[in-house]
């Protein structure tokens, strides 16, 4: 039994605390027994709690219990009580002096402080949480946080409220405490339940994080790999660029070795090229040795075969002959060696996607050595690099070879060109020499000939004895013969070198035949050979062709007929060749197709004279052919006549041949030539043309009404004077409008001064043309210009000018130009 000290606040009474089996029994003895509630008296309290409160006038005493670490106080009356040790070994000590902080109170104090700090901590945790969660943007578990926060806060609150319960406290405090505890319990249970769901998630987050980290590590590794490859690729590109930037074989190979050496940090790099015989490989280039001594190895080495048989880079032993380039120092470990084949492509084998089947199969060997005494190994990407480079080198070499080839070919061509040029010039010189010779000879020969013939014919007119006459006749005949010969030779030579051109013109065909007839008639009548001429009725009168040569041909053929006939008649027929009659000709290679513009004239000259052996027919047309028939007669005939005729006929796109049934049976000479129909509109002019077309140059043009337009006064006056001097009736105007106004059909020619630049003058031409729609009435429009280039000429042609005259123009020139203009109605001349 403990005596509890009295409350200094003057309490009175006694309390007996008796331990029982079930708990503590508090016995109170008071002076005022009504102070105690009946519930308290004789009640058994649990060990945990014994709170006795007396609120009456502070007559109470405090009972303090320590159960474990729980302390309890009670206030009872002023008497001191003692508390017994309980059966469970529980020692309780009670100091009922209220403000006394003795040994028990130290613990209490610590409890107090701890509770306070706990509360503080508990309150600060949520604040921190809130602060950091607010800062972080992403936190998926806000609800959990709230719960947790509530839980913490309530715990804190509980602890805080606990602070008040160390002393005697009011019921409110107890209630609040209880509420807090209840809430805390609820929330903490809820949180615990929630965490069951959350924690696996969080853990999985953790796992994912770990997974991602692993992945990142892996990607890093792969990045490293890719970068390495990229580096390699870059090296390859650079190497290729270096290699391909030159077309010189030597440089290519040297550069390859240097660049490879640099890129792969090689100790040595060597290239073995096959020799001409193809039986050995010769060391051609190395990286370190400047001038490699001519090492050779036979090409049939197993290691070489091994490398050549595959298009990949192959690791070879450092001790094999191709790799043993340096004298072995013995000490160090040689680095790994790799060899790759480099195809030497034949030019014609250059296929883009098709390396494998090369017919020549010539390879060079490239050997690469890593530095010795380093632990370096050949990596896959390095091997790939080497293979790629080998291919590129092959391509570059073939390009170099192609270039060499083409250079050689070009040089050859140039030489040939030079030679050809020289030959051509020589030929030209020869031709020119011949032409000059012929021209000179022609003139030189004709002059005396002319003299001979003229004088002999004059001599014939004089009084001569018979003998003399005979002699003169012979001289004349020989002279004529010679003259003909000269003419023929000249003609033929011109025909031969292709410089001969037909002079086409419109002429009267019937007249030609008539003339030939007239020419041949006297000779034939001397020989008593009747000659008949039959012209088909549909044969046109006027045709376009080379009159002179046609006449020459007909004359020659008819002449031959007369010459080689002793008797019989000669008939000349001419008609238009029809397709049927053409087919039976002996010349299958001509397919004459008459058209609107031209027709084919067929002339047959039949005689009943000597005839020709059919076998000799082809020979007739060759020059100077030894024709026995001619030789037997003392006739005048060179062998050239028919040859020339043939040439002429061919030029006229026709053919000539002779049909004969044999010697003594006469022969028929037939030829076909192409002639053109003349233009209809020039028909009327033809009537006025003289039979022999000679151009008469007029010396003055009396009364020719002309119009001059020139903006420059001085120039106008000069031109006017010029034309007036030539006798024209000149009207001179200075402006275009005046020109248009005054021009009329009475003016035969309009001279327009066309300025050097611009095409204004042409507009006038167009206007004037428009003014005169009918062609034959319109004056001729001629431009006077100082500009002689093609463009002006083309412009003039384009606008339909009839002529262009270049300034400055002299009187004589103007005279001839105007007459030519009037003659031809067109005038385009150069300077």
């Amino acid at each position, binding site marked *: 039994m403990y005596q509890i000290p009295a409350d200094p606040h003057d309490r009175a009474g006694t309390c007996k605390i008796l331990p029982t089996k079930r708990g503590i029994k508090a016995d109170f003895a008071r002076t005022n027994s009504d102070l105690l509630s009946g519930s308290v008296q004789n009640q058994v309290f649990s060990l945990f709690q014994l709170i006795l409160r007396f609120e009456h006038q502070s007559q109470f005493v405090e009972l303090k219990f320590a159960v474990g670490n729980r302390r309890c106080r009670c206030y009872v009356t002023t008497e001191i009580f003692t508390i017994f040790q309980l059966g469970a070994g529980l020692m309780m000590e009670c100091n009922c002096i209220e403000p006394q902080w003795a040994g028990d109170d130290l613990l209490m104090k610590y409890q107090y402080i701890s509770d306070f700090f706990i509360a503080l901590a508990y309150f600060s945790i949520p604040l921190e949480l809130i602060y950091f969660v607010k800062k972080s943007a992403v936190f998926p578990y806000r609800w959990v946080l709230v719960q947790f926060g509530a839980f913490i806060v309530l715990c804190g609150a509980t602890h805080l409220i606990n602070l008040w319960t160390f002393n005697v406290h009011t019921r409110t405090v107890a209630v609040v405490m209880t509420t807090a505890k209840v809430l805390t319990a609820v929330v903490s249970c809820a949180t615990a339940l929630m965490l069951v769901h959350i924690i696996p998630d969080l853990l999985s987050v953790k796992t994912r994080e770990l997974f991602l980290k692993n992945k990142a590590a892996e990607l890093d590794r792969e990045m490293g790999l890719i970068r390495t490859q990229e580096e390699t690729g870059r090296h390859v590109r650079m190497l290729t660029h270096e290699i391909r930037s030159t077309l010189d074989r030597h440089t290519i190979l040297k550069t390859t070795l240097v660049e490879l050496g640099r890129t792969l940090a090689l100790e040595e790099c060597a290239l073995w090229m096959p020799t001409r015989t193809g039986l050995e490989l010769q060391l051609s280039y190395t990286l370190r040795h400047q001038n490699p001594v001519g090492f050779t190895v036979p090409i049939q080495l197993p290691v070489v075969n091994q490398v050549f048989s595959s298009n990949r880079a192959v690791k070879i032993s450092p001790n094999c002959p191709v790799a043993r380039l340096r004298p072995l120092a013995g000490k160090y470990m040689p680095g790994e060696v790799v060899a790759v084949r480099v195809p030497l492509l034949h030019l014609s084998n250059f296929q883009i996607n098709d390396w494998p089947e090369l017919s020549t199969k010539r390879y060079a060997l490239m050997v690469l050595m890593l530095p010795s005494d380093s632990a370096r190994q050949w990596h896959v990407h390095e091997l790939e690099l080497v293979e790629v480079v080998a291919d590129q080198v092959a391509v570059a070499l073939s390009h170099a070879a192609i270039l060499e080839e083409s250079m050689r070919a070009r040089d050859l061509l140039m030489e040939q060109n030079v030679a050809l040029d020289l030959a051509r010039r020589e030929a030209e010189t020869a031709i020119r020499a011949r032409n000059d010779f012929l021209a000179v000879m022609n003139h030189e020969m004709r002059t005396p000939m002319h003299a001979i013939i003229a004088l002999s014919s004059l001599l014939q007119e004089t009084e001569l004895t018979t003998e003399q006459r005979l002699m003169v006749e012979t001289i004349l005949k020989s002279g004529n013969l010679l003259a003909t010969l000269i003419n023929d030779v000249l003609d033929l030579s011109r025909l031969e070198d292709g410089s001969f051109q037909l002079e086409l013109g419109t002429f009267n065909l019937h007249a030609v035949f008539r003339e030939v007839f007239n020419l041949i008639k006297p000779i034939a009548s001397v020989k008593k050979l009747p000659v008949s001429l039959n012209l088909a009725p549909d044969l046109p009168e006027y045709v376009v062709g080379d009159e002179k040569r046609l006449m020459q041909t007909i004359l020659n053929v008819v002449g031959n007929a007369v010459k080689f006939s002793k008797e019989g008649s000669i008939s000349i027929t001419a008609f238009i060749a029809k397709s049927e009659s053409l087919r039976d000709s002996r010349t299958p290679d001509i397919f004459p197709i008459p058209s609107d513009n031209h027709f084919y004239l067929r002339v047959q000259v039949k005689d009943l004279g000597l005839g020709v052996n059919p076998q000799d027919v082809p020979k007739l047309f060759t020059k100077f052919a030894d024709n026995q028939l001619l030789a037997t007669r003392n006739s005048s005939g060179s062998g050239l006549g028919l040859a020339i005729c043939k040439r002429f006929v061919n030029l006229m796109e026709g053919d000539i041949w002779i049909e004969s049934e044999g010697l003594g049976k006469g022969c028929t000479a037939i030829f076909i030539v192409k002639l053109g129909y003349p233009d209809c509109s020039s028909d009327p002019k033809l009537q006025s043309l003289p039979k022999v077309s000679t151009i008469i140059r007029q010396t003055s043009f009396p009364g020719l009404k002309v119009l001059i337009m020139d*903006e420059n006064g*001085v*120039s106008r006056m*000069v*031109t006017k*004077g010029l034309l007036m*001097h030539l006798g024209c009736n000149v009207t001179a105007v200075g402006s275009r409008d005046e020109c248009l106004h005054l021009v009329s059909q009475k003016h035969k020619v309009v001279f327009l001064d066309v300025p050097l*630049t611009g095409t204004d003058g042409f507009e006038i031409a167009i206007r004037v043309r428009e003014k005169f729609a009918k062609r034959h009435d319109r004056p001729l429009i001629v431009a006077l210009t100082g500009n002689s280039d093609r463009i002006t000429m083309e412009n003039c042609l384009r606008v339909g000018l009839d002529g262009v005259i270049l300034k*400055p123009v002299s*009187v004589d020139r103007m005279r001839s130009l105007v007459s030519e203009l009037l003659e031809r109605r067109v005038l385009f001349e150069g300077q």
Partner: protein
Amino acid sequence: MEGVAQLRRQLVDYLTSLFQEGFLDNQFTQLQQLQDESNPDFVVEVVNLFFEDSERLLNELTKALDQPSVDFKKVDSHVHQLKGSSSSIGAQRVQNVCIAFRNYCEEHNIEGCLNCLQQVKQEYSLVKNKLETLFKLEQQLLAAGGSVP
């Protein structure tokens, strides 16, 4: 007769010198050929017309080149006219300067144009003097009773 022969010779020499110095060219000869009985004063007329025309053109050119902003097209057309006239009568030196003048016009080179204008004026006055002297000699010869070669 002495006087006439001397005058004649003088005229011929003078004319030859004009050709040799390049003042006149073949065109002038052509002009002389055009002169005949029907057209006795042809050459004088043409030359006078040339003088009038050229003076007018030279004034126009001076005015045009004096402008603050030169109208090169107009200048070019005047020069072209002058060139045409001078070539028509055979004033060779004037013609040559005109050709150069036209080049400067094309390049729009004012300095060059002004230079050329000066030159043209110079050449023109030279040739004018020469021609006037020539005509005077001719008159003298005709007055003395001779005939122009």
